[in-house]
Each structure stands twice: as structure tokens, then as C-alpha cells.
């Protein structure tokens, strides 16, 4: 127990190795989230909005990539960035950019697929009405994104959650280098392997707390933007049963 407290106090000390790890983790997750949503959301909106030849193939590809094993994404990025790889001259292997790249490869398809689904659920229902009201194409798109905003916000947080909890890919391309590419998940693995359970547990708790905070923000944002009837559906989800019964 004492060791756990010690681990925590170490983590909260500015400049300590542990605090540096937490900071790096947040940095990595933030970059990965921003880049993958910047690419994935517009792409997903286009895929969800427009019918074009090859759309089915793209959707299938996206779904496959959504389930891409992280180690595989890591491997691909590793090869590309390794000395003999096409981008080897950039010397990016075992750096933060390399980790972010692997994460972007991993998360963008997820963001893309989720935004495509979100948009395609609303767009067809909205199109006739928006068009019939005389709204311009651009305005219609804006209204569509506005109506999907709570899903889009939650997609952002899904991306962040994926990113912060990722191990395999990050380990591979980051290499878990002390003070450089060691993030919380890889640190937990290392500490556990070395038998420093209290550090591992302390790091795990911090990871949980961060996740909890992120999720709370996401939920409260959603509640604020969710329509009352959706909330009602959430409260009463006893499908297939008679409602309003009294004893």
C-alpha cells in the first residue's frame, strides 16, 4: 500500500519520469485523435453521403480495417519507417511521430466508418425536406453535421480512447524508449515484467481515471445535445414487454 502511495506521489511530482510518461501519453493521444478525425470525418461524411461506383467495396474495406489488429498496423508502419523502408531516410522510427502515425493508420478507418454510418442514418431522411425547403447544398451539409453532432462528438472520444489504450502498435514502432517513447500502456507492461507491480497498478489507475474523465465529458456533451425522445428510449429499454403495468 505504501508503495502505491509512493508511486502516486512520484507521478504527481513535476519532472519525474512517471509524470513525463503521462504527459507523453496524452500528447500522443491528442495528436492521433486530431489527425485521424481530421482525415476520417470528412472522408466518412463523403462515403456516407454520396453514392458512387465502388462504394460497397470501400465500405467493406473500411469494416475490415476497423478490425485491423493493432500489431499489424504497427508492423506496416514499422516497415515503412525502417531504415530500408520507403520513408526510412526520415529517421522516424522510435519517435513520437512514428507512434502517432501507427495510431492514425489504426484509428482513421474507425472514425471514417463511424462517421459514414452516423451521416447515412440521417442524410436520406433529411435530404428531401432540406431540398424542398430550398436550402442550398452547402447549407444542407451544415445542417446534417449539426444534426449528427452528438455522434460526431462521441466518435472523437472513441478515437481518443482507442489511442490512449493502445499497446501493440505503439510498442512496435515506438520501442518503449525511456524518456522518449514510453507511454502509459507500454510502461505498465515493462513494470509488470520487471516485477514492479505497484508502479504498474498506479499507472493503470491513472489510465482508468483519465478514461473515466474523458468518458464523463463525452457523455455530458451527448446528454446536452441529445434529443429528449432519444433519452427516453435509453431509459426504457425493456424491449418486447408491455409497458405501464402496475402492481
Amino acid at each position, binding site marked *: 500500500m505504501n508503495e502505491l502511495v509512493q508511486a502516486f506521489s512520484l507521478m504527481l511530482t513535476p519532472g519525474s519520469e512517471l509524470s513525463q510518461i503521462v504527459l507523453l501519453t496524452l500528447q500522443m493521444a491528442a495528436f492521433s485523435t486530431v489527425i485521424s478525425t481530421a482525415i476520417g470525418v470528412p472522408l466518412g461524411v463523403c462515403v456516407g453521403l454520396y453514392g458512387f461506383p465502388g462504394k460497397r467495396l470501400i465500405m467493406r474495406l473500411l469494416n475490415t480495417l476497423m478490425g485491423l489488429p493493432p500489431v499489424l498496423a504497427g508492423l506496416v508502419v514499422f516497415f515503412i519507417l525502417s531504415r530500408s523502408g520507403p520513408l526510412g531516410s526520415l529517421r522516424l522510427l522510435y519517435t513520437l511521430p512514428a507512434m502517432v502515425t501507427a495510431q492514425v493508420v489504426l484509428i482513421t478507418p474507425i472514425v471514417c466508418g463511424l462517421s459514414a454510418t452516423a451521416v447515412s442514418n440521417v442524410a436520406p*431522411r*433529411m*435530404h*428531401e*425536406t*432540406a*431540398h*424542398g*425547403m*430550398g*436550402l*442550398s447544398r452547402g*447549407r444542407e451539409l451544415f*445542417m446534417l453535421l449539426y*444534426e449528427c453532432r452528438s455522434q460526431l462528438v462521441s466518435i472523437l472520444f472513441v478515437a481518443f480512447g482507442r489511442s490512449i489504450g493502445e499497446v501493440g502498435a505503439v510498442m512496435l514502432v515506438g520501442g518503449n524508449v525511456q524518456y522518449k517513447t514510453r507511454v502509459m500502456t507500454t510502461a505498465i507492461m515493462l513494470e509488470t515484467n520487471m516485477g514492479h507491480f505497484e508502479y504498474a497498478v498506479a499507472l493503470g489507475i491513472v489510465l482508468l481515471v483519465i478514461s473515466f474523465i474523458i468518458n464523463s465529458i463525452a457523455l455530458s456533451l451527448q446528454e446536452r445535445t441529445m*434529443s*429528449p*425522445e432519444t433519452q427516453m428510449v435509453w431509459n426504457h429499454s425493456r424491449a418486447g414487454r408491455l409497458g405501464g403495468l402496475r402492481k
Partner: protein
Amino acid sequence: MRPPFRLSIEKLKKTYAERMVLDIDELVLDSGHAYALVGPNGSGKSTLLKILAGAIDASEGGVVVHGESNPEELRVGFMPQKSYSFGFSVFRNVALALEGSGLTRSEIGERVTSALDIVGISDLADARGSSLSGGEAQRMALARILVRDLDVALLDEPTASMDITATMLVEDVLTEYREKTGCLLLVATHAPSQARRIANSIVMLSEGKVVECGDAQDVLLQPTSAQGREFLSYWSV
């Protein structure tokens, strides 16, 4: 009011996955007139309205506008069979239809207020659009038509979810609106009484084809086609 114009639908075809759902050789619609679009389920009424509104594209053929040098300028409004209600207030839901109309804020406010009053939902102005009942949502959708000065108003079963009082009211409102704006009114409906009350002419579709077209009384009393006779035999006019 705009000088009279005429829409002439020529060789219009719409196919979905090889299935022909609309196949109109010729159909002429004049401004200032009210047309009731009738026909059994799946006969292509909504499809025709959507094509005229430009919400979907025809597979072949199209609409030619006569008597109007710049057809792009015709203001066309369309109320779909299932309108979408945005998550914000009813007031904003309706005001959205006046965006880009060049009206000032206060003019928009006045128009929206009066339209909501006409359709009888002014007490719901601040309610969330997406929380309206089926009939209320339809009233709101109609208000989106009424706030605008349209040249062509296309309404897809505008009173399908409305109670009888609202239905009667809307029929009067539509007639008034057409007289005021001089617009071309095309209303899909399943109610014989409605067809008679609001329309001068009736267009009947059956399996995507126009089987009857003409003066409302004539069509109702003396349908010329077999499909028309069969369909109208259930209509006790």
C-alpha cells in the same frame, strides 16, 4: 405574382434497379391551377413529386417550362410524405425555410409567427421540432411551405396524419394560398373529398403511368380508363 407559365412533363421515366416505377409520356400542368395527384400505393405519386422538386433525378426525360424565360428562377417548394424535423425549436424549423430569401429578421419572425398561427401550432413555437406528434410535425412541415412565396408548391399527402379539423382547415388554407400567390399546386392525396375540395384537375397514376387527367368533376364522374374506373369505384363521391 409571376406571369402564367406551364410545366410540360415529357417522356419522363424513372427506374429503380431496372424496375420502371414512373413512365409518363406527356403531362401538362398550368400555373394558377390546383391538381390532385391520386392513385394506389406504389403508383409513383411521391416519385413524380420528388422529381419535379429536384430532390431526385429522372432516369430519362424531364420537365420543360413554357412561358418563363428563366426556369431556374421558379421558386419550388416541396413537402415530402415524411418530413424531417430538426432537433431545434419549431420556430427555427420553419424559419430555416426563409434563409437566403433576403427578408429581414423581423420580417421572417412575422411570417413564421403567422404561418404557425394559420396551421394552429403557435403554442408549440418553442417546442423541439423532433418531439412533435405526427400531425403536429405535418402542420409544421406545411408552415414551411406557407411562409414562402412559391411558384410551384408540391405537397405529398399533406394531411395524412392530421385530424379532421386540421384537414378541413388545411384544405381552405391551401386554396387561399394558391389564390394569393398564383402558384401551381400539386397535391398527392388518398382522400376523394380532398381531391374535390382543393383541386380543379385530377391526375391519376397507376403503375407509374398517367391513366386519367382532366377536370376534377369529369374524372371523378366519368373515368375513361379501366384502372380509373376500378380505383374510383371505391371512392364514394
